[in-house]
């Protein structure tokens, strides 16, 4: 009897170990599969939206059933440093569901190109890991934000590693929460180090130029070569 119980206990432990391994597989592989598929769909819908020139969001009533797609996508983020043709959608809010489809825009921060801080967050690992290479950004690198009407070109000014509670980095004037903003800046946050959430990796950029959507491709190739 005791031996049988021991046998069952052993099998349960082996099962638990297998389930833990399975969780790792899910976290490191499957979430990427799901999130990349989601992001690609949102990007496609946004492009259609922009092409329609309605200026509406992905939630706009263009007749395409938004099944399973989060609403609130309003911009496309291009970061040439992350690779040729790298693009992710930017969505309202920084909930888990939002971040599983792209890059999240912090509620209450400025919009693209606006004076103030256009602050976004993205995963460093898992869930499509849009900001996996955030530590490869260097001062002067271009970050382009494409909306229905404009392309905003930001240039990276620097980065910092901060504790997760350091909300001042997404203030209208980063690092100075009380100040009234005079410049348009962009802030990207992600976790740091990779596979941990102990700290946050924060990249700051500032608005350099505002272009017509037609000038996006030349600007992207210029940024890639530069």
């Amino acid at each position, binding site marked *: 009897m005791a031996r049988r119980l021991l046998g069952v206990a052993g099998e349960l432990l082996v099962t638990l170990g297998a389930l833990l391994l399975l969780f790792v597989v899910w976290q490191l592989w499957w979430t990427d599969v799901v999130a990349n598929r989601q992001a690609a769909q949102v990007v496609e819908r946004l492009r259609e939206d922009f092409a329609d020139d309605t200026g509406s969001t992905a939630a706009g009533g263009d007749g395409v059933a938004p099944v399973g797609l989060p609403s609130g996508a309003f911009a496309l983020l291009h970061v040439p440093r992350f690779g040729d043709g790298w693009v992710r959608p930017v969505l309202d809010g920084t909930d888990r569901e939002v971040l599983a489809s792209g890059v999240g825009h912090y509620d209450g921060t400025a919009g693209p190109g606006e004076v103030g801080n256009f602050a976004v967050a993205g995963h460093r690992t898992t869930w499509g890991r849009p900001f996996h290479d955030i530590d490869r950004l260097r001062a002067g690198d271009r970050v382009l934000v494409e909306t229905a009407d404009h392309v905003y070109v930001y240039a990276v000014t620097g980065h910092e590693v901060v504790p997760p*509670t350091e909300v001042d980095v997404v203030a209208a004037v980063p690092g100075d929460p009380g100040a009234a903003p005079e410049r348009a800046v962009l802030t990207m*946050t992600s976790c740091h180090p990779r596979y941990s959430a102990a700290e946050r990796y924060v990249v700051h950029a500032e608005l350099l130029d505002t272009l017509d959507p037609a000038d996006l491709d030349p600007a992207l190739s210029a940024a890639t070569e530069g």
Partner: protein
Amino acid sequence: MYAALWRALPGPTWAKALQAAVLLAVVVAVCFRWVFPVLEPLMPFADVTVGP
């Protein structure tokens, strides 16, 4: 435990193996679709935002 399950499955060995594979696939699918997404927020791996 698993030996008892194996004995409980009907049919010849190949049928038992097939059923076991299907059961395993169901367990994996349930974990991927429902169990792991619920567990994930409890894990400190992927918080990317700053907040108080």
